[in-house]
């Protein structure tokens, strides 16, 4: 069995290297999309194949055949497989959509080249088993996205891109500082090895260190310093609220398929995913990080939703809504971490924690699908009418029936209306918060209340969007709107179906293949770190124990 992992980086990289050269050979702009779409399909196939393989068949891949711990490795455990699949699905849809949509812009070769390189960067981040390697691919994805945001070269697009670039570089610098500190303290860059060093450490001897690390795990003050820099860096990348300033400018400025990629997967693969990986697997699941994540997530949830209500630009509204929805994911993951850290006190908490992580990851996947769909639909609308100002739209329900149905599906899913996947993930998160409040700490009541309130506000502003865009009489802008070309229609329709089908994740056969391994990776790490062997394994841990040796790149 050949190891599939390197191809996740090599395939898009080859595409990215080739496209700028080959791009100008194609006769028309639509033809330039053929090669990238083929590469995207290949990646999708690879991702499906990887998810279907059992963990034992996907050992870490050591670049250059150097061994642990001096080489650089690619690692795929349940969590990274899950994220890889989400990335592959969304990017394939975005590429399909680009074929017709990007005829509005010049230089398709540059566009597809940058797109493929951004994809390579994201896959590289998701698979990285080495901290510095993670940083390098973070930069690849980041720089490609800065350039793509400014791809239209209009003045405000350039300005948004500049802001995004400056804050993104600041985030990268924080990550690099953390790498310097961690290397000095542990002597390693391999994530698994760093985690191992933390777990083996006898713990701090200074006063503050002891106070900070009540929850064991042997972290000391310099480690917390590094963790603070890492948290700031990746919170900037994930646009959690005090660090969100760039997102509402950058995401709407990009071409629609790129907005879909940025909001749909980039902030998750380069932000939320890495945060989860770091706090659970590397920093030994200390509860203080869980509390920080819950607070940041709740802030994002509320601020994003409140700011979204007042927006009149469709894409800008969607961008604020992204902040809010990612807040849900982060709240769920943080809650899972806190409960896991407390779970030795009560076994029930362990089960709730696993459910919280499941809800968080489920919502992550759902949000990737419906938010990228919403951005693509906004692109369709802009393509057909030339505007995305809500007050200038209207009456599109009859003019563009397919696009209208896609918009309805996505809006209902993100507002949490029952048959759609979005309902279940939000419901699970709410349920978990209530359970946490009952079982663990009253403060979760506040978070639960906020989550419920935000869900209602979300329902409200998406109802507003649907009425403004679809209802009413056609405006001057929409009077001669026609349905979009085939490629765009196909991409949006496929994602709309996925919105509906994502509820299938709850089906045991799918859940056990797709999400359970991902949850197991997180719970296994957290609980092992919180209390080594002292508690009986959680119900969901059975799978985790088989997966554990491979997780994060330790050799069997």
């Amino acid at each position, binding site marked *: 069995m050949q190891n599939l992992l390197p191809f996740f980086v090599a395939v898009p990289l080859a595409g990215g290297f080739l496209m700028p050269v080959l791009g100008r050979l194609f006769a028309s702009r639509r033809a330039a999309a053929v090669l990238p779409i083929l590469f995207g399909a290949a990646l999708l196939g690879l991702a499906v194949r990887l998810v279907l393989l059992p963990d034992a068949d996907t050992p870490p891949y050591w670049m250059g055949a150097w061994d642990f711990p001096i080489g650089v490795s690619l690692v795929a455990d349940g969590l990274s497989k899950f994220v890889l699949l989400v990335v592959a699905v969304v990017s394939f849809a975005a590429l399909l959509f680009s074929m017709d949509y990007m005829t509005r812009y010049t230089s398709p070769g540059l566009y597809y080249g940058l797109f493929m390189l951004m994809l390579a960067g994201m896959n590289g981040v998701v698979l990285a088993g080495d901290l510095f390697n993670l940083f*390098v691919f973070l930069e690849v994805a980041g720089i490609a996205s800065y350039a793509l945001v400014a791809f239209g070269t209009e*003045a405000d697009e*350039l300005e948004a891109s500049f802001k995004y670039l*400056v804050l993104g*570089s*600041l985030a990268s610098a924080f990550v690099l500082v953390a790498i310097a*500190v961690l290397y000095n303290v542990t002597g390693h860059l391999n994530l698994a090895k760093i985690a191992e060093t933390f777990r083996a450490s006898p713990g701090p001897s200074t006063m503050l260190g002891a106070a900070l690390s009540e929850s064991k795990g042997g972290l000391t003050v310099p480690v917390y310093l590094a963790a603070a820099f890492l948290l700031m860096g990746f919170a900037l990348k994930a646009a959690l609220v005090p660090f969100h300033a760039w997102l*509402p400018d950058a995401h709407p400025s990009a071409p629609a398929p790129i907005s879909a990629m940025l909001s749909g997967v980039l902030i998750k693969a380069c932000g939320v995913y890495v945060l989860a990986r770091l706090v659970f697997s590397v920093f030994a699941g200390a509860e203080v990080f869980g509390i920080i994540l819950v607070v940041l997530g709740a802030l994002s949830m509320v601020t994003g939703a409140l700011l979204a209500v007042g927006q009149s630009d469709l894409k800008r509204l969607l961008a604020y809504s992204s902040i809010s929805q990612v807040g849900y994911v982060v709240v769920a993951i943080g809650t899972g971490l806190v409960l896991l850290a407390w779970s030795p006190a009560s076994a029930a908490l362990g089960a709730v924690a696993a459910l919280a992580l499941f809800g968080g990851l489920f919502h992550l996947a759902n949000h990737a699908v419906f938010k990228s769909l919403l951005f693509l639909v906004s692109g369709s609308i802009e393509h057909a009418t030339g505007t995305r100002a809500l007050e200038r739209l209207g009456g599109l329900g009859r003019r563009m029936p397919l696009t209208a149905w896609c918009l309805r599906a996505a809006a209902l899913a993100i507002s949490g209306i029952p048959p759609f996947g979005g309902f279940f993930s939000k419901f699970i998160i709410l349920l978990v918060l209530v359970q946490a409040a009952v079982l663990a700490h009253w403060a979760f009541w506040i978070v639960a209340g906020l989550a419920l309130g935000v869900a209602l506000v979300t329902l409200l502003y998406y109802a507003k969007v649907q009425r403004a865009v679809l209802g009413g009489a056609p405006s001057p802008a929409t009077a001669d709107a026609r349905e979009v070309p085939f490629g765009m229609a196909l991409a949006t329709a496929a994602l709309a179906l996925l919105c509906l089908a994502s509820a299938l994740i709850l089906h045991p056969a799918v859940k056990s293949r797709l999400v359970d391994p991902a949850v197991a990776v997180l719970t296994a790490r957290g609980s092992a770190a919180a209390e080594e062997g002292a508690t009986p394994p959680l119900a969901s841990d059975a799978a985790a124990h088989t997966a554990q040796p491979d997780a994060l790149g330790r050799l069997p």
Partner: protein
Amino acid sequence: MTLDMLPYLLGFLLLVIGVYAIIAKRNLIKVIVGLLVIDYATNLLLILVGYRSNTGGAPMAPILTPQLTPAQIARHAVDPLPQALILTSIVIGLSVTALVVALAIRLYDRYGTFDTGRFRNLRG
């Protein structure tokens, strides 16, 4: 606090100065200067972290020359790994600088100034 931590702390100070420039300055060129300073600060921290003093001699670079034996290198040379990381980091910094300068001159082209305060502000 001991004196042997002082270089690290000066490195952190440089980082804060760069962050200050990014936040406080509205002129694009000054912001780019801030980014450069941040790059210097991170590279500086990395090289400081890998330094090993060589008792009774100048610091030894991890490069084998005819005067040295591999064993001497292993015992006295400075850490080569942070140097490898910095090499990559310098390149990344240069790439980011190239892109940011491209954005800045394009913005100047549009507005005739480097001052973000005079730009037509983004909504919100």
